[in-house]
């Protein structure tokens, strides 16, 4: 298994959001704006990379019969550390997404990768898989955040200063004067937009795969 294959697999084909539908609670709750989505993506990345690397490094010492409590303890530790750093250095954003950062600990995407990958692979492969999984989750979060914000308020990057400081006050872009679909900012809107987005993503991926495997592209079984 090459690192390139692991990375591509984690980002696209086994994407935690649109392929496995894992971690949907924070994904739907926090993606009402692009900046909130980016904040949660950064927090989730820190937790998944830190905890899975730690689990991989300690895998020979973690008793098989107590592995799940150990994984949860390590993930909870990294979630608490991330939450504390956010509260210390990005307080305004922390106030908006704190409740969802705390529930990263129950995100089955992270526990799933710990059990299926980090506890069986070396540190190098685990880091690549964790970065790929985090990037895949971040892609889904940012895309969903951008679409929902655009539909609900007609803007992009609203409240960028919460994450990037006073220099980002002028970053927000007003794309439309009249919002197209205000419901997109609400929880039902999150389900609707996410469902349509995941369906469109899967159609695109399947079309891409079918296109690659078509006989006239020279990859058919008859010609090989």
């Amino acid at each position, binding site marked *: 298994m090459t690192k390139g294959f692991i990375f591509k697999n984690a980002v696209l084909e086994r994407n935690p959001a649109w392929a496995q539908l894992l971690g949907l609670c924070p994904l739907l709750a926090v993606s009402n704006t692009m900046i909130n989505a980016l904040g949660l993506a950064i927090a989730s990345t820190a937790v998944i990379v830190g905890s899975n690397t730690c689990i991989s490094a300690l895998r020979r010492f973690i*008793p098989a019969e107590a592995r799940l409590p150990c994984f949860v303890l390590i993930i909870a530790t990294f979630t608490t550390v991330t939450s504390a750093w956010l509260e210390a250095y990005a307080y305004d954003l922390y106030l908006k997404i704190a409740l969802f950062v705390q529930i990263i600990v129950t995100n089955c995407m992270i526990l799933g990768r710990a059990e299926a990958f980090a506890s069986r692979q070396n540190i190098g492969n685990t880091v690549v898989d964790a970065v790929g999984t985090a990037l895949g989750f971040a892609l889904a979060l940012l895309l969903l955040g951008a679409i929902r914000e655009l539909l609900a308020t007609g803007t992009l990057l609203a409240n960028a200063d919460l994450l990037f400081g006073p220099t980002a006050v002028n970053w927000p872009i007003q794309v439309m004067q009249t919002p197209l679909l205000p419901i997109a900012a609400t929880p039902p809107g999150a389900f609707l937009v996410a469902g349509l987005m995941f369906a469109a993503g899967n159609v695109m991926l399947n079309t891409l795969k079918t296109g690659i495997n078509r006989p006239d592209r020279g990859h058919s079984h008859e010609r090989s």
Partner: protein
Amino acid sequence: MGRTVLSLAAIGGLCGLLLVTTHYQTKGPIQINREAQARGLMTTMLGSPLTAEIDLTASFQGDCTTWVFHKTQAMGYAGNIELRTLWRPGGAMMMRVIAHRETPGIGDFIDHTRDPWILALDGKRIDAIEQTDNVSGATITTRAILRAAQFSARNIEQFCDD
């Protein structure tokens, strides 16, 4: 068996060490941020700026002839709810939640930035606040706020009597 126990103790110790280190690294900035937030919220509640000498870590601020702030907390559904209560002569009260861990979408209506529920209690005396209905689906959270209001009213009365 012995090796398993040792492994678990070592993993627990490592996690503990990481948490303690993070706590010492971040406790200063977190304290500053929380105080600034509390000061901002209290200024908004009062309608005028608080003087810099006011000690926000004390349980009471102000005097009974003008206004009194009381710092309190109550056990909600998912942890402690921290509040500030503003009391004015005559008994009118105003409450705001500083920090909480209630369930998003269910118990977070107590946060005035997410829901106007707590704003509806503004200016009421404790006997009127006690008559407030519980919010369906979040009874424990509502009761925690009402208990905090009773606790504040009792303590402020005692503070003013002294």
